[in-house]
């Protein structure tokens, strides 16, 4: 493996670094309970258990924490939607907390390293969140293939039970919580929260019609909060440092630190926890600059489901609002960087193969649309495309976006429409024979 490249980033870029959730990763054994405890571990839990659950929901609301799984929904509001019993009577149905650890959006690689390096921070967040929403049963639905992270997580859960952080009467508070780590079995769609719930109930992972929302009809048709790993892992720090401290990072509408995952044609790809609103120019500086001989050509701000951007967007802040204004989405802050040596048509083709493979088949626009878009992209890359193919692709996108049952179909249109928008000439080069076919025409 190449040695990391050492360059000095500008002071502006360095000022964006906010080591909070990633801080403990430097301690090699932070995954062990004893080390975690020495590094302030489970202090937030003690503090939280001394507070009223409603105070914790208010605290998270005040912090402005927004979902880190892609959608950016305000976390405190989500918690507040859970119906609580009135007049001191317990709620009619049990509540559940489900952590979405089904990381798989192409480009996204932040939750698995977090669970590897610091699994107890997630568990501590789970206990606090479950206490706040009054859930006595929590699940971490972890992607099946992530056996390395699941191994650490299961070990950490065992340790937490033994130490009295899980189970009956946690730390003498009277609060009970059981936590199950549940491995998936290879289906990207299970990252969609209602598909995840169906999968967790033992069904095919297909999304549910909303409303009703999980807040009232979630797991086992009971009130359920589904939160991403990074969202829940942020909670202990908010409990310790307070809402105002949390808001000292990020922007007014997108507060807090965020783990940006940068991959591709940069010198030092990896995880960079930064203030929300860092620009790509600054992030590339932190990542040691572009690789020699590579110039930025296109990039995803938050995984393959977020429309591509180009070099003209180097200085757009990567927060929820600014990304939306630029015609894309912040997504999971999975920044994939491609250069002039990478073909946007081929990149799109591979992503559409992915969406075709992962489409759950429930709704026609996504199932059929991705199937046909894949055929068309193959044809273009094999030198057999026509001008009509571009119209057909855009027409297919029109019929998928907003007409699919869930966001998987919508997301699939992002690379297609954005690559045609910015790189139509690349498509034309294949169609008009200026560029040699990338795929074997015989196989098409």
């Amino acid at each position, binding site marked *: *493996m190449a040695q990391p490249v050492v360059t000095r980033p500008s002071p502006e870029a360095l000022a964006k670094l906010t*080591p909070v959730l990633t801080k403990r990763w430097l301690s090699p054994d932070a995954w062990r309970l004893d080390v975690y405890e020495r590094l302030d571990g489970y202090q937030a839990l003690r503090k939280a258990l001394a507070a009223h659950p409603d105070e914790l929901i208010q605290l998270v609301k005040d912090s402005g924490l927004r979902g880190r799984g892609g959608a950016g929904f305000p976390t405190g509001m989500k918690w507040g939607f859970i119906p609580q019993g009135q007049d001191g009577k317990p709620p009619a149905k049990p509540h559940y907390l489900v952590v979405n650890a089904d990381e798989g959006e*192409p480009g996204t690689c932040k939750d698995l390293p977090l669970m590897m390096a610091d699994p107890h921070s997630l568990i501590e967040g789970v206990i606090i969140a479950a206490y706040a929403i009054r859930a006595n049963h929590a699940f971490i639905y972890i992607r099946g293939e992530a056996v390395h992270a699941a191994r650490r997580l299961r*070990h950490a859960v065992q340790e937490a039970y033994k130490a009295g952080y899980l189970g009956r009467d946690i730390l003498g508070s009277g609060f009970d919580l059981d936590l199950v780590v549940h491995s998936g*079995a290879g289906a990207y769609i299970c990252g969609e929260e209602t598909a995840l719930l169906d999968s967790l109930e*033992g069904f095919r992972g297909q999304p549910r019609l909303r409303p009703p929302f999980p807040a009232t009809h979630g797991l086992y048709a009971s009130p359920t909060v589904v939160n991403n790993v990074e969202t829940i892992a942020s909670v202990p720090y908010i409990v310790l440092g307070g809402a105002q401290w949390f808001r000292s990072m990020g922007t007014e509408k997108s507060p807090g630190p965020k783990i940006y995952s940068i991959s*591709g044609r940069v010198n030092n790809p*990896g995880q960079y926890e930064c203030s929300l609103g860092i620009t790509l120019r600054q992030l590339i500086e932190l990542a040691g600059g572009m690789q020699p001989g590579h110039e930025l050509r296109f990039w995803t701000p938050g995984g393959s489901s977020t429309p591509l951007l180009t070099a003209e967007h180097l200085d757009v802040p990567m927060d929820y609002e600014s990304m939306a204004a630029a015609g894309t989405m912040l997504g999971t802050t*999975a920044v994939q960087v491609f250069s002039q040596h990478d073909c946007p048509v081929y990149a799109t083709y591979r992503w559409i193969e*992915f969406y075709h493979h992962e489409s759950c088949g429930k709704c026609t626009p996504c199932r059929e649309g991705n199937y046909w878009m894949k055929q068309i992209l193959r044809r273009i890359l094999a030198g057999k495309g026509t001008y009509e193919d571009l119209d057909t692709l855009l027409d297919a996108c029109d019929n998928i976006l907003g007409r699919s049952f869930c966001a998987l179909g919508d997301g699939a249109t992002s690379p297609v429409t954005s690559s045609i928008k910015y790189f139509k000439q690349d498509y034309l080069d294949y169609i008009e024979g200026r560029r040699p076919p990338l795929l074997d025409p015989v196989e098409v």
Partner: protein
Amino acid sequence: MAFSEETRERAREIIARYPAGRSRSALLPLLHLVQSEEGYVSPEGIEFCAELLGLTKAQVNAVATFYTMYKRKPTGEWLISVCTNTMCAVQGGNETYKALSEYLGVGHEETTPDGKFTLEHAECLAACDYAPVMTVNYDFFDNVQASDALEIVKKLQEGERPQPTRGARLCTFKEISLQLAGFPDEREGAVAEGPAGDPTLAGVRLAEQYGISVPGFDPQTPITEPAPGGPGNVTPETAPKPAADRKPAGDDVKGA
């Protein structure tokens, strides 16, 4: 039925993890458990799950066929998954897959005649910062080019178990299926194996190198602190200066 008493006992343990009356939630882990004994989801395994959960075989089949990790045919001792999603593909994943396919003489989801290897091309494995990657029974080999991949497979053929880049020493497909069913890795020291790689630590090392931490962190901050000016009015420029010189968790015992 062929399932051992040990497996039946494990199945009962799995079902007990879920709330009363919600035993169907145990279906995914039970299918992993079936693979831990059979090496794939066999017809007997379908029947086993159906019987335990009071479902029809058709209901179990419908679930088993939905998920990529449930194999419909006997799977090799070593399941080799090469990521060929965009980021890995453009950095060498395509060539790696092709080289392995030629060397082993098998295509996607095919198993070598000796039952040792099953090859598949995988979709994004959530390790783009380590691209290109491949996994053996789902444990990661990072920054793998075709020649590295061939070397790994040759070692496996010679009876060695090459150490994954991240994660513990290799398990067989059946062994890892038991972990997927929710059972802890009992191998001595296995949980400790697999240090975080350079990409994982890139940002936090940079912060350490330049002495950067987030100011104003005071773990004694009351949970019900009053928010002067109301929430939303605090911007980085106007944020209160740290009252105490506290640093975020981890500063004191770094590298312990």
